[in-house]
């Protein structure tokens, strides 16, 4: 069934970067991952992460999380996810 789903739409492989406290919670195998075919937007990606990693999803929902796609700030979660993208999840920052 899963194989058939992937057949219909080429699996997209993306790199996920988890910064700060998110980095402590994210399993290493998420660093490079083939996404299920129904993950088309950043919102879909966040929903999928929440399903597969509930603790990480809850931590992201509990704070202001910024998404960076290919080193540019994503302002709109309807933005598409493309094969080869690097998507970073940033918790609140604490420089200085």
């Amino acid at each position, binding site marked *: 069934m899963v194989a058939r789903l992937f057949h219909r739409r080429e699996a997209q492989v993306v790199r996920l970067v988890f910064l700060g406290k998110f*980095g402590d919670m994210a399993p290493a195998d998420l660093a490079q991952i083939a996404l299920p075919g129904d993950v088309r937007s950043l919102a879909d990606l966040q929903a999928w992460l929440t399903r597969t990693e509930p603790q990480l999803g809850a931590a992201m929902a509990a*704070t202001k999380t910024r998404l960076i796609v290919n080193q540019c700030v994503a302002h709109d979660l309807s933005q598409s996810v493309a094969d080869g993208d690097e998507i970073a999840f940033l918790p609140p*920052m604490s420089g200085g």
Partner: protein
Amino acid sequence: MRVRITAEAFDPQAEIASFTAGRDDAGALVNFVGTCRAANNGAAVETLRIDQYPGFTEKEITRLADETGRRFDCPDMLVVHRVGVIRPGEAIVLVAALSVHRANAFDAVKVLMDYLKTDAPLWKKETGPQGARWIEPRPEDHARRLQAEKG
């Protein structure tokens, strides 16, 4: 604007000397150095670890320094920020500004520091006898950031 992210300990005086070498266009130099404390809110700090997002962190700090330099008419600003593991007493951040007169250089350093506290893509983790914890901006950091924006 000069921005440097470094995993090595740095000497603020040497950085300032190199920043100001040969400059005769500015009558004022203001600098701020933030160092790692041995205690935070009464709890001992053994090490501080600062994580960056390589590439993005330097790009964002450069953008903040450019904006601040333009706003306060500073011909040059310098930011040196440590990442990696830092021990008490070591410098974490150096911000310096050159301007024709002192008021602009004072304002530029203060405002850029306020921005760095909340907007620089850096994440601090403190380790002490009680374990490790991630540091997030305090309400007063956000208040200062808002104030900095209003001018």
